[in-house]
């Protein structure tokens, strides 16, 4: 998994890091003219028509990668709801050679506002070289030109990195395509499935996939009930809850090694874990003598600190991005509501005051909003509010809908939606969905089995 710069002869260590190099020679100066932009903070955005040509391959193999790259980039951009890839059958100019300037007139005629062109080549050492350019069709300006070297198996990541570059250049915000989702795969109630047993009746397993559903794999085998996985900011680890040996505890799963390790030695059930933004601590709940309180464990020193002292249910904690505050839910006021406290457990303040119950707060990576689950009128909702509790907006609704997780740029939420179960066990299917912060563009994310408890990774470094 390496992406190497073309302008470097030395080989980089095989790391997970992807180095992306701007090729100065390919970059045309930014014109003073008004550029195409998308304001993604607006409510309903008219998708930007964009033409994505097949990347031209120097050889047959490279041409296949070229077509696949264009297809993945197109579907990434389309799913964002901000772009409308134009049907390639409408194209007048063939993909053409990258080094020639496009005939912009041919692209204006089909109303393309942006044009993506690329070229692929297998280089003698076996790597794949990919370069692409993004053009503003109307101002006839090049907006970006980038080149990448990668092992061919890594072509999907290159497609995601290019998608992120296009998204960022046009919206001004970081993308979220070079990311993964960890979630709990499960069998629906009426299906026969592997790995189901008395203590794990739906065969719940940890699973991980790219944000577009590709490269799907299971991380656990279903012999043990697992719940609520969450990524570490460093990406190599997931914290989750497991009923291994019927002892419900918080665990850490190392994605690279597959190693699972119980976190600490607690006298009661530990659950609802999340990493701190720096990845050095885990915040979670422990239930002792029936009472759930919030604790923080330092992963290096293993020192545990109790943050709440209350007979109420205190759980689902989430750090603010700067690590200075924690939002959680508690029924200390009589019903489940959201509270914010500082990272030492002091200055506790209730922030939710609407009708109904509020749960599973998650602080946006941007810090500006808190996503939550709301229960009201026998329905579940996903919503957002400001950290002071103002500006509540509901984005999605269902019989059961829960567990929002943020895209790394804080613009999209993924959660799971579950329908009603019939008496005979049919129905009740659970699937992952995403919605834009604007409340538009709600879409199902396809998974091989039923799915719940999604967690979105940060951008892969």
């Amino acid at each position, binding site marked *: 998994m390496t992406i190497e710069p073309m302008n470097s002869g030395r080989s980089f260590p095989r790391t997970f890091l992807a180095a992306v190099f701007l090729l100065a020679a390919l970059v045309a100066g930014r014109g003073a003219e008004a550029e195409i932009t998308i304001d993604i903070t607006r409510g309903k955005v008219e998708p930007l028509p964009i033409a994505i040509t097949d990347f031209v391959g120097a050889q047959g193999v490279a041409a296949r990668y070229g077509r696949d790259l264009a297809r993945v980039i197109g579907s990434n951009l389309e799913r964002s709801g901000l772009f409308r890839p134009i049907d390639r059958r409408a194209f007048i100019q063939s993909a053409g050679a990258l080094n020639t300037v496009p005939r912009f007139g041919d692209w204006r005629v089909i109303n393309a506002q942006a044009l993506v062109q690329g070229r692929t080549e297998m280089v003698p050492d076996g790597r794949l070289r990919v370069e692409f350019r993004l053009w503003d069709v109307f101002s006839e300006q090049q907006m970006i030109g980038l080149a990448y070297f990668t092992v061919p198996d890594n072509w999907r990541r290159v497609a995601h990195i290019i998608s992120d570059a296009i998204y960022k250049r046009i919206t001004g915000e970081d993308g979220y395509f070079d990311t993964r989702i960890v979630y709990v795969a499960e069998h629906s109630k009426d299906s026969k499935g592997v790995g189901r047993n008395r203590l794990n*009746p739906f065969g719940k397993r940890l699973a991980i996939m790219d944000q577009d559903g590709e490269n799907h794999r299971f991380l656990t085998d279903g012999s043990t009930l697992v719940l609520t996985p969450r990524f570490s900011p460093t990406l190599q680890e997931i914290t989750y809850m497991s009923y291994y040996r*019927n002892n419900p505890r918080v665990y850490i799963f190392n994605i690279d090694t597959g190693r699972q390790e119980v976190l600490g030695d607690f006298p009661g*059930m530990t659950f609802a874990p999340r990493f701190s933004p720096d990845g050095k601590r885990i915040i979670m709940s422990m239930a002792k003598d029936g009472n759930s309180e919030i604790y923080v464990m330092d992963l290096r020193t293993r020192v545990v600190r109790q943050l709440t002292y209350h007979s109420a249910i205190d759980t*689902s904690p989430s750090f603010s991005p700067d690590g200075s505050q924690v939002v959680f839910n508690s029924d200390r006021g009589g019903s*489940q509501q959201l509270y914010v406290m500082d990272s030492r457990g002091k200055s506790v303040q209730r922030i939710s005051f609407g009708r109904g119950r509020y749960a599973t707060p998650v602080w946006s990576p941007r810090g500006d909003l808190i996503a939550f689950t709301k*229960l009201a009128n*026998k329905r579940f909702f996903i919503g957002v509010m400001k950290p002071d509790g103002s500006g509540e907006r509901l984005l999605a609704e269902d019989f059961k809908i829960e567990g929002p997780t943020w895209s790394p740029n804080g613009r999209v939420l993924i959660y799971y939606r579950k329908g009603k179960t019939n*008496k005979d066990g049919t129905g009740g299917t659970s699937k992952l969905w995403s919605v834009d912060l604007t409340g538009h563009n709600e879409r199902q994310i396809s998974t091989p089995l039923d799915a719940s408890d999604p967690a979105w990774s940060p951008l892969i470094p």
Partner: protein
Amino acid sequence: MRFKVLGMVAALALVVSACESTPESGAGASGSGGGGAGGTSTITPLPAAAPLALKDQFVVDVGDRVFFSFDRFDVEPDQRETLNRQAAWLKKFSSVSVTIEGHADERGTREYNLALGARRANAVKDYLVFQGVDASRIKTVSYGEERPVALGSDESAWSQNRRGVTVVAGGS
């Protein structure tokens, strides 16, 4: 405590295997030895009914579960009789240890339901301890909403799923 439980299970296993071996040898004797005293009529002894394991006795004779109201964890007055019987039985079989499972219905968020299940399991434990059962014999575990007994998204299913189940130790 752990050793006691294991010892008890081993003893039970011996009893069961002894019961099973008796009818087999009886049947073998009648087959080879012919009529014996009865002559023409053959009397084949019935296999002895295997005694119910203690854990099954508990379920059948005592009642292993109590039910809770929505989002509540206090033992309802109409559920106390079941727990009184459990306490009496546990005092009679004083070497038995139990695990109390706390469960929730699906109408809550997953993590909250784990906490609610812990409260319910603990409420059952507290009740039994108050009735004189040694706390060291009782473990608790919460399954939240993860192990419903009744399917369906309606009150009749939910009311069965909001439960505390006392499970007598000794295999599953």
